[in-house]
């Protein structure tokens, strides 16, 4: 199949190369954020970066690996909790934030063999139980004072201005790093294999995809990413209240961002994160109605626009800014009829359309030396 000369496998386009350069320029500009923007904007952007991390992580988990977790707040809360413990035991405060997240990520490894054998809804609620258990156990720690919580007091060593700038840089660096790692992983062999698992686990297994290994990498990455988001949240808010950090609302936010942006599209998760940030900025103060609106919007998108805003745009105009997939192009049609070429491109599989053709396509990638 790889020798079939009637198709060209396309991994990037001129447009996507331009988008990549634009993203790099944007990151460089953002790196000077604390020197350029007002304190308010720096704080807002820090929050936005945290949302982007959560959105991209949940998308990697649910959109690509098919693991709908309603318990990622377990790692969000555990990361923050470990950071407080480490800082209390004398670790420098910013290293504690990183190490805390890493510990929470590592903790996902012994959990994964149990959880990853569950499928669909069983996995979803199983993760919820894990989050509840983590919450209950953290509250037992005397350092946390029950539901009252504790503070990351060591942050007081920095002046508010410095703290703001450090938090911003850490959030930006974390977001860029995690987005890049997810992008590279999904573009590589792992992306194809986890998507094959998502679309049909048994079929994937039968053609030699190492199901558990693939899921475990994504599961660890998502746990680590959510834990980093949790420690960053701790750095910006200083106080740790178990009820807030282990709250189910984080899952609601993640589902909203990914569904609105586009489940299973890399750019969609980013778009969803930005949209959620704006919506929270505008309506967050309305409290309960805001949450009702988020839930209702998630239902509407899941039912009527399952590819989300970006996925729908992508399908209509065939834009791929940050392509992680493979496109098939017919060389003869390319020169004079770009529309026909576009039509011939392979559509990326979605959880909404279980298409055997997609599975075949994702497994027909020429094997590359590892």
């Amino acid at each position, binding site marked *: 199949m790889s020798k079939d000369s009637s198709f060209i496998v396309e991994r990037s386009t001129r447009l996507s190369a331009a988008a990549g350069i634009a993203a790099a320029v944007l990151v460089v500009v953002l790196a000077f954020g604390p020197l350029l923007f007002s304190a308010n904007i720096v704080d807002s952007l820090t929050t936005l970066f945290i949302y982007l991390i959560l959105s991209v992580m949940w998308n990697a988990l649910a959109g690509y690996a098919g693991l709908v977790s309603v318990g990622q707040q377990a790692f969000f809360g555990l990361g923050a909790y470990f950071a407080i413990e480490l800082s209390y035991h004398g670790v420098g405060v910013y290293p504690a934030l990183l190490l805390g997240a890493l510990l929470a990520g590592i903790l996902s490894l012994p959990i994964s063999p149990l959880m990853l054998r569950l499928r669909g*809804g069983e996995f979803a*609620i199983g993760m919820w139980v894990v989050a509840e258990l983590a919450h209950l156990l953290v509250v037992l720690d005397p350092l946390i004072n029950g539901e009252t919580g504790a503070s990351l007091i060591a942050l007081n060593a920095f002046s508010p201005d410095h703290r703001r700038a450090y938090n911003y840089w850490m959030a930006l660096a974390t977001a860029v790093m995690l987005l890049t790692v997810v992008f590279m992983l999904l573009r590589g062999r792992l992306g194809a294999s986890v998507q094959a698992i998502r679309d049909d686990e048994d079929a994937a297994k039968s053609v030699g995809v190492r199901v558990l290994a693939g899921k475990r990498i994504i599961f660890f990455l998502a746990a680590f990413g959510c834990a980093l988001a949790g420690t960053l949240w701790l750095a910006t808010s200083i106080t740790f209240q178990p009820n807030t950090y282990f709250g189910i609302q984080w899952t609601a936010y993640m589902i909203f961002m990914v569904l609105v942006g586009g489940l299973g599209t890399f750019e969609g998760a980013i778009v969803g994160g930005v949209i959620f940030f704006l919506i929270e900025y505008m309506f967050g103060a309305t409290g309960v*109605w805001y949450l*009702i609106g988020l839930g209702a919007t*998630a*239902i509407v998108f*899941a*039912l009527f626009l399952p590819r989300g805003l970006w996925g729908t745009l992508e399908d209509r105009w065939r834009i791929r800014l940050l392509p992680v997939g493979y496109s098939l192009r017919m060389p003869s049609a390319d020169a004079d009829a770009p529309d026909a070429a576009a039509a011939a491109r392979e559509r990326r599989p979605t*959880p909404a359309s279980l298409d055997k053709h997609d599975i075949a396509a994702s497994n027909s990638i020429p094997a590359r030396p590892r």
Partner: protein
Amino acid sequence: MIWITQLLNGVLLGGYYALLACGLSFMFGVMRIINLAHGDLAILCACVVFFIADQTGISPFVALIVALPLMAAIGFWLQRLMLERSLRGGMLVPLLTTFGLAIVIENGLFEYFGADSRSLAPYIGDFAFDSWAIPGNIYIGSLALLIFAVAVVLLGGLKLFLTHTSLGRAIRATAEDPDTAGLVGINARYVYAVAAAIAVASAGLAGVFLAMRETFSPYSGPTQLIFAFEAVVIGGIGSLSGTLVGGIVLGIAQTFGAQINPQGFLIAGHVVFLVVLAGRLAAGALQARGGLHRLFARRS
């Protein structure tokens, strides 16, 4: 003696969990949907009954005559308007939509009823704390006993309904293979909606019993969903008689946990769930689910 009393309490509490889990298990067995709004639908029914009892002074037991058909109707139309469409989108979409529904229900209830914890106990008089003495200084709450009896009757009745009525057989046939069921003249859409109606009404009944037993708030739903799910998994997914066993195991674990530590109630339940899960995975027995589950053989 305290341990025997706790054991009995645990078993009776298990009856409540079985009742709560019954709808979750049934819906999964028939439609392969895990309804993440299950707990919130239970609380919704508790709120409806509370509203009726509070406004009119009618006994909550009488109010069930209005509330349960209402819940059944909600279940029926939930299937028709939302779940049916999300089922067409694959395995993940029902999870996402029911999670969205859960958020909408609990925050909607909060908007209307506020954050206060409520209870139906004041509306059922002495029955809330009546108990029977058994020789040996053991007391059994009459409400707990009633809930257990209702759970056994409901689970048994459902089993008989599935095996002995034409609608029950239609549900089983549709669960097995909706397309083939359609060939022999079964209206799968209608059958699914009826199954959803039964599931949601039974969840509502459990919610009302919860409200009689203890306090509830608009945000109590997720905890109930988790309990129900734990009972289902411990007992074996899709098996109605297993659900009763699972509920009892969970109930005993929780009452014993509470005896050890105030936080132990929840922790022990979750730990037993994870241990059972780990044990079953280790034994590689997750595929071989026994009992009634064979009625709902896996769709390919």
